[in-house]
């Protein structure tokens, strides 16, 4: 497939967009250029490149699929020039090597990345980086996504020549609640330090000691407790900083990486959910300039726990200790039996948690309509702290969505604890307190996790987690985003919430035939002007903004939708990069 048959890979064509520094929200340390960016023509390895004038040589080369290796450079951080891995030859300084991360593109510049001097530097650089590196890959969580490993195989692949003992350094420094540090593995790229300074803007890390004894440390009495500390783990190119929640849980190559949207708060950060079998192991940020850039908060990194633990697995009927698992069919029959006499008689309430997807909310509303429900309540997790960057006070991913769905169905969704109803159907039970549940004569719930409400419910139907199903969510500023069945497994009787409603409706004798997520979404798009013309399949990976919902005020640093324009980086993964690399849009 040398040249005839291979389809053109995206990276081999000069892209029309910049992948370089200087983008909106870029590092403060990078010199800002007043003049608007323009196109610069240069040559990399004899091939012409059209680059953005803000590009450095690494990004310019990446445009034509030429890989210049680097450790310390990160497109969103200032340039440090620490690692010397990126040295290349240019026509400006013949016979010398210049750092590709620091040198900006220049009209007519000729860059050579394959000369013997460059290759020898890369090899030597790797050798030096490995001089004191521990023999740890077998127990290192980074194995499989480690830049040292990748570059070693590509640029060094020689046996060691070191015959002395390796330097010993602290092996497990607990930096903070989420991060643990191994100084022996650290290559002193200072990405983590720069991240804390420039992006998190909470300088909690620093380089201490000198030369080969140097290491990264926190300040005395000040742990790394920033809400964004998890990102340092992602951008650490080696296994020096590790996520304590994920540590020793799974080897990364066993994990299935799948795009999704974080359910931790209303910001709706785009993430990859990584799972194996029935278990979700971690979340990593996925690039979306207009939502989370390439970052996410620490809380979001823990949102897989409710997917794994304390799940309602089997459909059951009966309250408290009298509950028995009866299988989905009998449980639905029981729900129908209980709800049928009440239909159209009044006194029915519908409770929709803002943790539900749009489709689940739509189905719940449909059920309410058919039963003649009188009141609709918005539930969800209680609000908590917020900040200027990514973290929103509303800890539910779909509050705007549920409200929008309510408008679409023409009902008022009350944002208050349920009262004034005798019977209730709850689509997810977050925030439904025991006191409320006990007061009800009849409670049917579709719930993901065991909680007070499921104990008090007459019928409990196990609901799939958002990470397990198809659907859509609307974030705090009105961006409709898609989620996919990221965790492939099915546990027990679990089914999407809308499917439980469909089964109940079928039992009640209504024929809506909501047999798929697309149809469930159509329930809304057919009723709402904001969603008209949209189908589930037509929602792009980056989501769509519903303009009517845009707020008037924005937190100072929160990423916001821009006018439609070309995105900053390549949309597809350039050759030789992994999904989630900083080059392909992730933060790693």
């Amino acid at each position: 497939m040398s040249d005839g048959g291979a389809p053109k890979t995206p990276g081999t064509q000069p892209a029309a967009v910049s992948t370089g520094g200087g983008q909106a929200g870029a590092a403060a340390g990078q010199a800002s250029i007043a003049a608007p960016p323009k196109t610069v023509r240069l040559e990399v390895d004899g091939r012409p490149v059209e680059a953005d004038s803000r590009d450095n040589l690494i990004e310019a080369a990446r445009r034509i699929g030429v890989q210049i290796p680097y450790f310390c450079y990160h497109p969103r951080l200032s340039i440090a020039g620490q690692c010397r891995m990126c040295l290349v030859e240019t026509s400006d300084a013949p016979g010398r090597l210049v750092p590709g991360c620091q040198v900006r593109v220049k009209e007519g510049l000729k860059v050579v990345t394959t000369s013997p001097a460059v290759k020898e530097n890369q090899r030597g650089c790797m050798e030096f980086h490995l001089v004191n590196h521990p023999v740890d890959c077998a127990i290192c969580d980074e194995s499989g996504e480690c830049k040292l490993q990748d570059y070693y195989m590509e640029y060094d692949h020689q046996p060691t020549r070191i015959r002395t003992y390796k330097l010993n350094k602290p092996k497990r420094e607990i930096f903070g609640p989420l991060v643990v540090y191994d100084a022996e593995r650290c290559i002193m790229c200072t990405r983590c330090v720069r991240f804390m300074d420039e992006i998190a803007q909470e300088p909690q890390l620093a380089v201490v000691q000198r030369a080969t004894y140097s290491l990264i440390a926190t300040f005395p009495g000040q742990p790394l407790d920033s809400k964004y500390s998890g990102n340092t783990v992602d951008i650490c190119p080696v296994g020096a900083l590790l996520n304590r929640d994920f540590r020793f849980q799974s080897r990364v190559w066993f994990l299935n990486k799948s795009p999704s949207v974080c359910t931790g708060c209303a910001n709706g950060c785009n993430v990859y959910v990584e799972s194996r079998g029935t278990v979700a192991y971690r979340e990593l940020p996925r690039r979306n300039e207009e939502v989370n850039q390439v970052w996410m908060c620490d809380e979001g990194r823990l949102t897989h726990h409710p997917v794994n633990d304390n799940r309602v697995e089997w459909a059951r009927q009966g309250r408290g200790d009298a509950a028995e698992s009866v299988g989905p069919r009998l449980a639905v029959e029981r729900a129908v039996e209980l709800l049928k006499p009440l239909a159209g008689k009044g006194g029915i309430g519908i409770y929709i948690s803002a943790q539900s997807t749009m489709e689940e909310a739509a189905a719940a509303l449909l059920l309410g309509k058919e039963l003649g429900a009188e009141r609709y309540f918005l539930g969800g997790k209680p609000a908590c702290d917020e900040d200027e960057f990514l973290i929103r006070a509303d800890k539910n991913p779909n509050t705007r969505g549920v409200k929008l769905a309510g408008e679409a169905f023409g009902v008022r969704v009350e944002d208050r604890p349920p009262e004034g109803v005798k019977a209730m159907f709850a689509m997810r039970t977050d925030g439904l307190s025991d006191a409320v549940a006990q007061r009800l004569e009849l409670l049917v719930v579709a719930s993901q996790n065991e909680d007070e409400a499921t104990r008090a419910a007459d019928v409990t139907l196990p609901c799939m987690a958002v990470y397990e199903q198809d659907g859509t969510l609307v974030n705090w500023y009105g961006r409709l985003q898609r989620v996919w069945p990221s965790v492939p497994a099915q546990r027990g009787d679990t089914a999407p919430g809308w499917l439980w409603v469909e089964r109940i409706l079928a039992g009640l004798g209504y024929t809506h035939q909501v047999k798929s997520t697309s149809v469930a979404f159509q329930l809304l798009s057919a009723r709402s002007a904001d969603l008209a013309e949209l189908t589930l399949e037509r929602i792009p990976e980056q989501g769509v903004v519903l303009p009517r919902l845009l707020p008037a005020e924005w937190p100072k640093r929160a990423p916001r939708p821009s006018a439609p324009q070309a995105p900053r980086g390549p949309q597809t993964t350039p050759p030789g990069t992994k999904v989630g690399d900083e080059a392909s849009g992730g933060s790693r």
Partner: protein
Amino acid sequence: MAQSLIDLLRETHPDAIVSTPGHRGDEVVVVRREQLVDVCRFLKEDPRTDLKLLAQIAGVDLLTYATEATGGGALASIEVPAYDLERKRPVEPRYQVAYNLGSVVKKHRLRLRLELRSDDMKIPTVTGIWRTADWWERYIYDMFGVEFVGHPNLTRIMMYPEFQGFPLRKDYPVRKRQPLVPELDFPDLVRGPGPGPGGAGVPMSQTHVGRANVDPDAYD
């Protein structure tokens, strides 16, 4: 030696050749589908080429050629998540069919390659030129769903007739399960005698053993 083959072909069939992407000493000629039979007949019968041996016909599906993620080893790819299949970008021409030819006298080799778009997967058969093409074409049909126009008996060869899908296409998941095949209700000499109409036995598909084809919408 083989280079002269390509030169010869350039002389005799100038419009049949699309490109000649040789690799590591293998000579490859990408030919136009319309001229395939002509070129093949010429290559076999002309004494200068004498490619009498059709060693193999092989197929390639390029769907994930460029997008397949790096690494992952054996385990990572086993479960292809649904979103992944959904998001696969179309690649055209998606299929390639390669004819590995050889001459036992002149001892040279040549590979013909056809490129096929997924909306038009038809190739004229070369069974009239090489007898051995019969089974190879059936194999490619079986694995990739390429239709060989004019083939005398284009049926599945490795898979059974009821098999659904084409296993070597890249969007066929490795772990895909096939539905059970109900026992045929008529005596069939090719597939073996079934219970027959009015026969004593109940078709196996209706017994507990073969209860796989249940209504996919049923939820228990």
